[in-house]
């Protein structure tokens, strides 16, 4: 399964994606990303294990992330490989869901103030 959902302390969720998020990979992450988006508030999507993504895979992330945002939550992206980062920045997805290289900084970014 190219998606693992982990609970970190303080209500933070870490979503680990891995492998090729192509047509088949997107089909596998679609439902879990949607369920995650509907139930979580502070989300870090770890992309370090993803070797390929294009618009279909981005769509799953964006839809899940928008559900998180509609509830007033935050979703950020962590450590994409350069090829994956290029796809993300060309799409402009990083304007909605910023990219962090450091997990501590990502945790700080999604932790609600106060």
């Amino acid at each position: 399964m190219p998606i693992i959902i982990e609970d970190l302390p303080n209500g933070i969720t870490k979503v680990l994606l891995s492998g090729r998020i192509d047509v088949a990979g997107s089909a596998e992450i679609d439902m879990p990303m949607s369920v995650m988006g509907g139930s979580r508030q502070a989300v870090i999507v770890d992309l370090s294990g993803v070797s390929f993504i294009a618009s279909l895979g981005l769509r799953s992330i964006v839809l899940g992330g928008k559900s998180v945002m509609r509830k007033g939550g935050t979703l950020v992206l962590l450590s994409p490989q350069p090829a994956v980062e290029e796809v993300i920045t060309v799409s402009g997805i990083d304007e909605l869901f910023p990219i962090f290289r450091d997990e501590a900084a990502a945790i700080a970014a999604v932790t609600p103030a106060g």
Partner: protein
Amino acid sequence: MARPDQAPEELRITSAVDELARLYPWLDAAANRLSLNPNMLQAMHVALEEAVMNVAMHGYPAGEAGEIIVQLQVEANAAVLRVEDQGPRFDPVAAPENAGPDQATPGGHGIKLLRHFCKDISYARRADRNFLTLRFPFKNA
């Protein structure tokens, strides 16, 4: 070194999801047989997914799987991907980009990604078919 004299590699699939998944291993194997530099493959994979998903999502009515023919050929200065389908006219060269990060539709990002990863795209409509040609120049050609 890629050889321009070889016959094109061809894949015929339908727009059904399990068929679309065959694109990636086909492209890897075809590129390998044509001795393409593996460094070219990332851009080709993204561009090919976008081009074919445009057809699968917009070209054929929902639930109706149409045929898509993909070819890879080595020319003197470039690797060339051709995508042919029988769907309604769709020209991604002229299509609006649907810019903006809020655009969650695959088509919106898809056109942007297609144009970023392939700078030389041409489109033709002949005999009720769409012909899309994606050229990837060799760096040291």
